[in-house]
């Protein structure tokens, strides 16, 4: 699948960059995230539980960074394994831009999924990924701005079932315009964010 998006975060670019470097803020902002570990300057490992419609699995992933341009952006490639649920892998480009005292985060993801995620979840993954991304940014924005005031961090929801419901029109045949690689972007978004560490 391919996914692009932008999110305006009500904080200066340098603060967003720093927050993105705070593993605890990230862990608490990412839906279902359990661990974030840095294995080298350009490599990260993470685990999270995600649910795409009927497919729920614990994913373990690793991400490699390239084209690093702090605090403006970079490219990352990553891969996550969800055991029997399948796998997701792909590439994401992320950039930050100052905009009137706030920060515009832009991302574009090109990902593919395999196994049960592709088989059953394919129609759900797009919507679930978008919902996951939305939830992340909502929680992240709150956590970035509230970290000043020492208020408790906002935990994002885990269950993606609602997202699946957004897409319940059941077509009578698969669309011919199947994007060759469906789904999985959520994982990439999350992995993308890890990479700011």
């Amino acid at each position: 699948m391919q996914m692009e998006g932008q999110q305006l975060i009500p904080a200066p670019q340098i603060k967003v960059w720093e927050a993105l470097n705070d593993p605890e803020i990230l862990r608490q902002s990412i839906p279902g995230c359990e661990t974030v570990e840095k294995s080298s300057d350009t490599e990260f490992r993470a685990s999270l539980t995600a649910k795409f419609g009927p497919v729920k699995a614990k994913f373990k992933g690793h991400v490699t960074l390239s084209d690093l341009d702090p605090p403006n952006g970079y490219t990352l490639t990553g891969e996550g394994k969800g055991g029997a649920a399948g796998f997701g892998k792909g590439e994401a480009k992320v950039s930050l831009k100052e905009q009137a005292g706030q920060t515009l985060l832009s991302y574009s993801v090109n990902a593919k999924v395999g196994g049960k995620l592709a088989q059953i979840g394919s129609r759900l993954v797009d919507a679930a990924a978008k919902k996951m991304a939305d939830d992340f940014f909502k929680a992240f924005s709150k956590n970035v701005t509230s970290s000043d005031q020492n208020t408790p961090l906002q935990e994002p929801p885990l269950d993606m079932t609602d997202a699946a419901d957004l897409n319940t029109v059941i077509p009578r045949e698969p669309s011919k315009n199947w994007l060759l690689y469906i789904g999985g972007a959520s994982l990439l978004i999350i992995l993308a964010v890890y990479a700011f560490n």
Partner: protein
Amino acid sequence: MTTETGIGASVRRKEDKRFIIGKGRYLDDINKQGQTYGYFIRSPHAHAKINGFDATEALNAPGVVAVLTGPDMEADGIGPIICGWAITSKDGSPHKAPAHPALAIGHVRYVGHQVALVVAETLQEAKNAAELVDVDYEELPHVVEVGDALAEGAPQIHADVPGNLSFDWELGDRAAAEQAISTAHHVTRMDLRNNRVIPNAMEPRAALSEYDMGTDEITLYTTSQNPHVHRLVLSAFNGVAPEHKLRVIAPDVGGGFGSKIFIYSEETVCAWATKKLNRPIKWTAERSEAFLSDAHGRDHETHAEMAFDAQGKILGFKVSTKANVGCYLSTFASAVPTYLYGTLLNGQYTMPAIYVEVQAGFTNTAPVDAYRGAGRPEATYVVERMIEIGAREMGIDPGEIRKRNFIPPDAYPYETPVIMTYDSGNYALAMDKAQAAIDYKGFEARKAESAQRGKLRGIGYSAFIEACGIAPSAAVGSLGAGVGLWESAQVRFNPTGSVTVFTGSHSHGQGHETTFAQIISDQLGVPIDQVEISHGDTGKVPFGMGTYGSRSLAVGGSAIVKAIDKIVEKSKKIAAHTLEASVEDIEHAHGVFSVAGTDKKMTMAEIAFSAYVPHNYPADVEPGMDETAFYDPLNFTFPAGTHIAEVEIDPETGTTEILDWVAVDDFGNVINPMIVEGQVHGGLAQGIGQALLENCVYDKESGQLLTGSYMDYCMPRADDLPTFRVETINTPCTTNPLGVKGCGEAGAISAPAALMNAITNALGKEIDMPATPEKVWRAAQGL
């Protein structure tokens, strides 16, 4: 004799009561003391090398009994999954059937490929542990479509199969067909695609294996259409256990459509592992596993050329087909696109010259094998689309062109150029009846009325023929079959006059318990509720070849008739002794044995009783009334008929409504008209499903199965189907004692061609299956 339950009566199905009240015993209803649960780890990749396998964490997880792999099976000497039919290529070389271990060794070759079995105390524990197994895959290039797989430079799927070509087979006279084409008045040329379908039986595949250490016997319950064949193959080829120490039971099975003929990895693994672990193991496929790993059907890419003279008489027919067989050759995968396909390309017509060549290619997809009709729907589609398109191109009425080409009723036995000998038929009669039933003459007026409403109306024929009752053992043996295709029956009278019939046929929805009981009731005068049909258990039935190819009645029913003949012969001796007459003077009709010209008689029940209580009994006759017969047919049977479909298309939405469907089928003699009609309805639903809705799609770029659930794979529902109008004509088969031909597959064989001919007639444009609204809309809009 009670004609209400005899041959020709629409007796309500005896088996339906237990299904309706929820007392059917399907595989998942069966449980064993101390049973464990199996869960298969499957490849998420279309093609990959396995560089590492680590189950350490899983083995320490709660409830886990074992994690078993392909190398474990190999170490125990368990042989690979086999293909049971050897095909010879044009150049004389045998087909290539690469080793197919039941669990992957070193490589995975399709999404869903079985990699390991996790066995645990509960299903949830098995699934949880499966998450902890780390398989290190190295992805390899893949190919999912047969045309691509056979093209130059395609990824190599098996090291020992160059170019992914399993075989390059031919049948017929190439020179004669090409000569006819080069000199004909008109040649119709078309590329046709027979879309890939997924079987979708109501009950998914399942297995429950149990080992008895005391007797050293393995019992395997499995969803099989042919439990004895399962036992034979699992014993002789896989080496799971000696045949006398392996019992295979296929209880109530919820639909097969061919997909449960085959010996699959999962039941092979369960049968082996139960002894290894000394625990019962249960595995029931989830629907998503069924989509991935049940053998799929069809998937042909064909180029055909049909040559006509100026009157529309067929002069020659040449067909080149590429058949996708998936990543391994399944049990009968090689026979389906060859001897079950090429041999039917003669259709109902006189064709002087036919040539067919088939290239079977491996791809990174699930194995493809027999699916309701198995080769014959593919053949019918090619023949009936080609003659219809030929008629359009030449401006001849499609009914008329068929009539000009029909084999006449006095030409039997009729030898075709593609090695079949049709025994009987009356094709024009079926067409006349179908045309009358649908009011063919009134079609133009109906079309005009539709046009006034902005709708496109179309009508389409399918004059199909099939070869059923597979088949004489000597014939199939000469064509490469690894088994004989006879059937067995044991007719056992109990002392009180009730009867148990043990049949090698297997019922998984066909209604054998009723149809077979009707034969007993008719011939031996036993009330139908006193007849029990027992099937599906190798521990009870002597042997059997099972149910597929619409063979149960023609072959299994004929075996019952042969056993009945033995019962009658013996009963005559007992009656002669008891009634003090000579055997030659005993006459038998419907279970009453009488002395000719007198009122002295005995009933079958009295004779059966005396056979078990032989107080006054002939000294030279064995006590008991229990006879077994094996029947090997003399020929295939050749059901045929004409189906006409009438549709209306909304050019604004692309939706196709089937307005009317007339099916006139020649099934020979009919035992139970209601069951026959039900079988025709079911077949039609599947054929219409293929033509209108169903389509299996693998993503070319990722190799993933995109149509892996009911969200993406569209099955026909009641409101997609019209009210079918089904009639039969009854030209008796001349080669079996019941004169029956088989009806189980007819609808699925005939329907796709009829429906696509109707839709393309309405559109005035050729499109491929499935005729989805999007495709139809594009064609209607001229896009």
